[in-house]
């Protein structure tokens, strides 16, 4: 655990920073939409914030992990030679990592500012600040010793983050969510649409809640509950293909993956106890 805490601290600090960064673009966008008299209310704001956190956040998460991994490794070496408060060094490294990463994204990848919230000076400062707090959080994580529950909780939160995306899709944009599963929602009869929407939404929201409860309580039953649902989905997916003659699809691969993940967490808790 002593060795593992560094990479998991990078992953956790990156996730924390992404949670700070994504609302910058979302809120700046919402402010602009409001300025052109678009009817932005609480529900629409929530929709934008949550969607950005899920969709934009996943892209940013990968980018920030790379930036933080490099910056904190270098800072770890520097702390051996520089007699200065390590927490401020890591915080500064976090700010630099975000600033340089955002700059390189423009120069090397897109020649345009991909992040709407990073187009203004204020937006850039807020991104650096998010990196600063990310670095500080990293120091906070590595300055303490943790047991296995830290990794369990991290992987649980990451899992919930993925399931959150499916849940939001079914809550806010069911047409798109249905299309991802290969059918046109509006083609169905009203009753069928209703059944599909409530069942799919319940499916994802329930498993999201199960895993979050597992993260909070570390009770393996919650993780097993989520896992069993997805494994059942995979089994009955294949049953539908083999017995009822529906078209073969690869969704069961994802279902097995999403089923085994929380089951692995639950088993780990049982073994460690």
């Amino acid at each position: 655990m002593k060795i593992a805490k560094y990479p998991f601290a990078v992953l956790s600090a990156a996730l924390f920073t992404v949670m700070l960064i994504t609302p910058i673009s979302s809120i700046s966008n919402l402010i602009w939409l409001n300025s052109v008299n678009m009817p932005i209310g609480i529900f629409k704001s929530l929709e934008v914030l949550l969607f950005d956190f899920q969709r934009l956040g996943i892209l940013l998460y990968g980018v920030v992990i790379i930036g933080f991994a490099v910056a904190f490794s270098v800072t770890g070496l520097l702390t051996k030679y520089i007699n200065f408060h390590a927490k401020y060094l890591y915080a500064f490294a976090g700010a630099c990592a975000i600033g340089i990463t955002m700059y390189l994204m423009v120069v090397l990848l897109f020649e345009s500012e991909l992040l709407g919230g990073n187009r203004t000076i204020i937006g850039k400062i807020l991104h650096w600040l998010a990196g600063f707090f990310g670095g500080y959080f990293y120091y906070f994580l590595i300055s303490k010793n943790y047991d296995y529950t830290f990794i369990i909780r991290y992987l649980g939160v990451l899992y919930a983050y993925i399931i959150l995306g499916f849940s939001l899709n079914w809550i806010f944009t069911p047409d798109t969510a249905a299309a991802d599963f290969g059918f046109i929602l509006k083609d169905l009869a009203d009753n069928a649409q209703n059944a599909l929407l409530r069942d799919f939404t319940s499916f994802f929201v329930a498993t999201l809640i199960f895993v979050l409860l597992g993260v909070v309580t570390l009770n393996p039953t919650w993780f097993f509950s989520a896992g069993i649902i997805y494994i059942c989905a995979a089994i009955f997916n294949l049953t539908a293909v083999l017995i009822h003659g529906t078209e073969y699809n690869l969704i069961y691969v994802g279902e097995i993956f999403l089923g085994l993940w929380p089951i692995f967490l639950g088993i780990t808790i049982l073994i460690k106890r």
Partner: protein
Amino acid sequence: MKFFLSFFILFFSIHSSTEYKYETVLDNLDDAWSFVFLNEDTILFTEMPGKLKIASLTNKSIINIGNVPEVAYSSQGGLSEVILDPDFDSNNKIYITYSAKKDNKKITLYLSSAELKNNELVNRKVIFEANAFRRSPAHMGAKIAFLNDGTLLLTSGDGYDHREKAQKLDNHFGKIIRINRDGSIPQDNPFISNKNALSDIYSYGHRNMQGLVITGSGEIYEHEHGPKGGDELNIIKPSLNYGWPAITYGIDYSGAVISPFTEKEGMEQPLFTWIPSIAPSDMIFYEKDLYPELKNNFLITALVSKDVKQININDLTTQKSLFTDLNFRLRNIQDSPKGYIYLLTDGPNNKLIKILPK
């Protein structure tokens, strides 16, 4: 409703192209972007790095045209569109669009006119400079077309980083512009009396418009690249707001929400939406007889779907995919004076392909 319509259209797209035969008439072009026919066997074409050339389609000879303006060639910028003056036979006048730096600083879109004489551009002058300065040449638009009254329409893209400015009338980001052939502003332009608007603006709220045609009856059709999803075909009318980026059917390349709205009163809905994006790059309205099955159809080249979308003007809800077996990203489409269709592929070492009728 539009989502449903788009998925329906996507689902029922018909892929039929094997009945056509192809002939590569020019090869190894240097990022050629647009072309126009001087006669049945000769074209004038642009290459993005800043070359304007005349090519014979019979003996394949290519001549460089001199005195072409210096361009900012990178990303989506460079020498873009070329068209002939309606009176080209008598005045030899052509019009070109290009991205260039102003005072070696920021980049914007220019429209120049010149006379084509002895393989040189003479009397070249800038007749329009877009008030749309940007750091990198992204989303330039740069399409031009003549209206039936002899005035010019020009598309000026939103510059990607400046998308919000498409909703403001004090700049040229995300606008269709209407000017006279000498660059002056027609007095019947829709915003001529609006002191808060640039008087050359014809319509606004656009993204990156790379298809612009005027039908024989004078209607203006335009298509534009959406973000991730949400490419649009629009009918353009003066003074109207086409919504970008306040309403859109797409999301940002990063996955971020651009707008949670797809419609609003006072903002126009597209005639047709492509989800997912096909990246429409050019368009003609085919009115000749050589391919009877294509008559009165829009033919839209696409970069991502690597085909030509055929949409009948009388049925804008269905499309066909043509020439799919070519499997090239397609940049430009033109019909020759006799009616032959030619396709220009995209990118470096691109080629010009002639479509032979069935």
